[in-house]
C-alpha cells in the first residue's frame, strides 16, 4: 500500500478500477483468452522441462550405478556396517526399553548414520550455546570504553572472519590439542578438569544408587516449578514458584540427592570417570565456537549500534551506570533484534560441523562418506544426508521463529 493513503480512499478506489479496466476491458476477449492460454502453456512447458531434466539426471545416475551392479534401494541401510567409529551413540533396544549405546561394527549402516548425526548435533548444540555467550561478550567488548579491550576484540573478530574456518580447525587440532601434555602428565584444573592430548575430561553427572523414589519425585517437582517460573509471567506467581523450587530442592537434599558429580581421575592412557571429550571433538568445538563467536559479536555489535542513542542518554540522565544500562535497557532490546540473524548463524554453524572430516571427527558427512565408500551407494546416501541437513535448518529456524514470536509478541514495540 502506498504510504499516507488510507485503504478506502477514493483516490485508491479509482486507481484500482482503472487498472482493472486496463487489464480486462481494453484487450479483446479472443486475444485475452489466447494470452491466458499461452501463459498456462508456458507454465506447463517450464515444469515439464525441469522435471524432465531432474528425472533424466536421476535415471542416468541410476543407470550408471546399475551398470556397476548397484541398484537403487535403501535396503543396504539394514546391513551390518563392519567399520568402527571413534565415538557416537546409536539407538538400540534392551528388552522393550529403547537405549543409547556406543556404536560398534556389528551395528547397521542406518545406526552408523545415526551415530554421525548424534556427533554432529553434539558439537552443534554445544557450540550454539557457547558461541552465543562468548559472542555477546566480545560484541559488548567491541563497544567498551576501554581502548585496549575495544581494539583487542576488533582484532580478534577481524582475524577470525578473514581466515578460512578449515585452517582454524586444523590449527586447533594439530597445533593446539595434539600439543597438550600426554595423558600420563595431564594437567589438572582444580581436580575436576583434566586436559591431555588424548582428550579433555569434565566432571560428569551420575545417578546415585541409593536414591529412593521420594527424592526423584521431589527433584521432579523442583524442575517443573523452575521451568514454570521461567515460562509464566507475573512477579507474584514467579515468586511463589521460586519458593516452591527452593523448598523442593532443600527437601531433596535432606532426603538424599539422587544426582552426584563424577570427577575424572587420571590414568596412564586417559582418565576414568567424568565426561570425556575426544581430542577431535575438542578441537572442532573450539574452532567452531571461536569462529562463530566472532560472527555473533558482529551481529550483537550491529544491533547495539542500531538502537536509538536516546536509550543510552535517557538511562544516563536517570543516573543508571553503563553496565546497568547495558544489562537492563540495551541487551533486552538487542535480543529482540538479533534473533533472525542469530538463526542464520546457527544454521551455518550446524553446516560447518561437516568440516570435522578434515581432522577425522566422525560427523554425519564423514560417516556418509565411509558408508558410501563401503557400499557404493552415493545416490541414496546423499538423499538421506541432504534431507537431514534440510530438516536441521528447518528445525533451527522454527525454534528461533517461535522464540522470536514470544519475545516480540507481548510488550514489544
Amino acid at each position, binding site marked *: 500500500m502506498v504510504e499516507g493513503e488510507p485503504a478506502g480512499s477514493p483516490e485508491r478506489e479509482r486507481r484500482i478500477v482503472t487498472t482493472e479496466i486496463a487489464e480486462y476491458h481494453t484487450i479483446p476477449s479472443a486475444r485475452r483468452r489466447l494470452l491466458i492460454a499461452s*501463459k498456462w502453456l*508456458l*507454465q506447463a512447458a*517450464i*515444469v515439464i522441462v*525441469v522435471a524432465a531434466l531432474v528425472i533424466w*539426471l536421476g535415471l*542416468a*545416475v541410476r543407470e*550408471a*550405478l546399475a*551398470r556397476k551392479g548397484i541398484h537403487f534401494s535403501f535396503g543396504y541401510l539394514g546391513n551390518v556396517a563392519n567399520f568402527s567409529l571413534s565415538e557416537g551413540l546409536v539407538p538400540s533396544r534392551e528388552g522393550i526399553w529403547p537405549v543409547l549405546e556406543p556404536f560398534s561394527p556389528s551395528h547397521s549402516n542406518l545406526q552408523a548414520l545415526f551415530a554421525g548425526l548424534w556427533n554432529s548435533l553434539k558439537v552443534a548444540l554445544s557450540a550454539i550455546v557457547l558461541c552465543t555467550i562468548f559472542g555477546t561478550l566480545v560484541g559488548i567488548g567491541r563497544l*567498551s*570504553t*576501554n*581502548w*585496549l*579491550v575495544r581494539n*583487542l576484540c576488533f582484532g580478534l573478530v*577481524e*582475524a577470525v*572472519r*578473514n*581466515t*578460512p*574456518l*578449515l*585452517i582454524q580447525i*586444523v*590449527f586447533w587440532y*594439530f*597445533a593446539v590439542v595434539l600439543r597438550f601434555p600426554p595423558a600420563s602428565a595431564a594437567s589438572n584444573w582444580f581436580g575436576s578438569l583434566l586436559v591431555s592430548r588424548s582428550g579433555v575430561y569434565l566432571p560428569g553427572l551420575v545417578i546415585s544408587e541409593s536414591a529412593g523414589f521420594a527424592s526423584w519425585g521431589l527433584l521432579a517437582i523442583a524442575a517443573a516449578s523452575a521451568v514454570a517460573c521461567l515460562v509464566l509471567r507475573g512477579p507474584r506467581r514467579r515468586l511463589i514458584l521460586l519458593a516452591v523450587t527452593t523448598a523442593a530442592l532443600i527437601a531433596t537434599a535432606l532426603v538424599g540427592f539422587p544426582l552426584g558429580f563424577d570427577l575424572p581421575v587420571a590414568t596412564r592412557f586417559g582418565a576414568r570417570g567424568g565426561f570425556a571429550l575426544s581430542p577431535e571433538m575438542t578441537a572442532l568445538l573450539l574452532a567452531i565456537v571461536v569462529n562463530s563467536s566472532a560472527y555473533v559479536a558482529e551481529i550483537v555489535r550491529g544491533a547495539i549500534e542500531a538502537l536509538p542513542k536516546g536509550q543510552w542518554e535517557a538511562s544516563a540522565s536517570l543516573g543508571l551506570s*553503563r*553496565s546497568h544500562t547495558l544489562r537492563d535497557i540495551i541487551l533486552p532490546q538487542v535480543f529482540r533484534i538479533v534473533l533472525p540473524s542469530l538463526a542464520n548463524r546457527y*544454521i551455518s554453524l550446524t*553446516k*560447518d560441523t*561437516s*568440516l570435522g*572430516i*578434515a581432522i577425522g571427527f566422525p560427523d554425519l*558427512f564423514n560417516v556418509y*562418506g565411509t558408508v558410501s565408500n563401503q557400499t557404493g551407494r*552415493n545416490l541414496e546416501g*546423499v538423499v538421506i*544426508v*541432504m534431507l537431514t*541437513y*534440510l530438516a*536441521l*535448518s*528447518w528445525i533451527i529456524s522454527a525454534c528461533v521463529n517461535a522464540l522470536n514470536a514470544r519475545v516480540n509478541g507481548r510488550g514489544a514495540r
Partner: protein
Amino acid sequence: MSTVALRWLHRNLFAKPFDTALSLVVIPVLAWAVYAFAHWILVDAHWEVVGGSLKVLMTGIYPADQLWRAWFSVATLCAMFGAGLGLSVRPGRAALAVAAMVAAAIAGTIAAAVGVSASLLTIASAALGVVAWVAVHHSKCDQRVVLAGLLAGVVAIFVVLSPPGFEVWGGLLLSVVLTIAVSILTLPFGILLALGRQSRIASVRVISTAYIETMRSVPLILVVYWIWIIVPLLSPDTSVPSLLRGMAGYALFFAAYVAEYVRSGLQAVPKGQIEAARSLAMNSWTLNVDIVLPQALRVVVPSLVGQVLDIFNGATLVFIIGLTDFLRAGQMILADPQNSGRTYEIYVFLFAVYLAIGGAITYASRRLEAHLARGSR
C-alpha cells in the same frame, strides 16, 4: 606532549574504576603475549622451512620446468588487480607509495628466501600492476572495456596454465584461480536465479526458490563432493578433470548465495522505475538488462566482493576431492618427517597469507560500499 599522552591514557584506559581494573589485567597479559610472540618470530622460529618449500606452497606439484606459466599468471593477476583498482581508487602519491612499499617488502622477503630471479619477477609483476592501475585510471576508458579485459585475463591464465594438465595445479595459485573462476561463473547463474525467484511465472518462481533454499541449507563440502562423484557417472566415456568438477560444485553452491544478494538489490530498485519502463512498452528482457539490473547490481557490488572472500575461504575444502590447495600444500610439507617440528612456522605463514588476502578483500568491499554510498547521494 606528555600531558596529551596522559590525558589520552586517562580517557581511554583509566576513565572509570572498571576500565582501570580491565586495563590492569589486560596490559600485562598482552605485553607478555606480544613479547613471547615477537621473540619466537625473531629468534626461535626456523623460517628456512617456509623459504625451502615456497614453491610447493605457491604452486603445489606444478612441474618446475613449466614455472614460467605460473609467473605469467602472477603477472596477469597483478595487471588485473591493478586494472580493477583503477576503476575505483585514484592512484595518488600515498596510495602508490603504499603499493611500492608492499611490493618491496614481498620482493625483499622472496629474495632472502628463494633467490634474486624470483624477486625480480615479483617486482616486474608488481610494476605491471601499477602500470595497469595508472593507465586505466587516466585513460578514462569505459568500464565495460575494462571488465572485458579482466575476463580475457582469466581466459588467458587458464589457457597458459592448462598444458601440463589440470591435475598438477596446486598451492596458492590454485586457490586464487579457483576463486576467480568461480566468482565469475556464479554471477550469470545467480542473476538468473534471482530474477527467477521474482518472476511473474509461478513455476519459475517455485523452482528457483526451491533450488536456492536447498543449496543454502546443505554444507558446501557435500555439494562439492557429490558433484565430483556424479559427473563421471553421467559421462562415463570422457574423463572430466577434478578441478573442473570441483569448480562446477562451487559455482552451483555459491550461485544460490549470489542470487540472494542480487535479490536484495532487485528489491532496492524503486518500483516506479519498473512501472515507467513498462509504460514505455519495454519487454522483460530490455527492462531487466537496461533498467533494473544496472541499478540492482550497483547496490550489491560490496556484498558480491565480500562473497569472493567466502569463496576463497571455501576453496580450502578442495582437499575432499583430492586437490592440493594452499592449506593442503602446507599440511603436505608438515607430513614430511624432517619438518615435523615446524608446525607453528608453517601455520603462522599460512595464517598470515590468508589474513593478508582476506583483509584486502574485506577492505576493498568496505571501500566500495563507501564509494557507492557517496555516489548515490
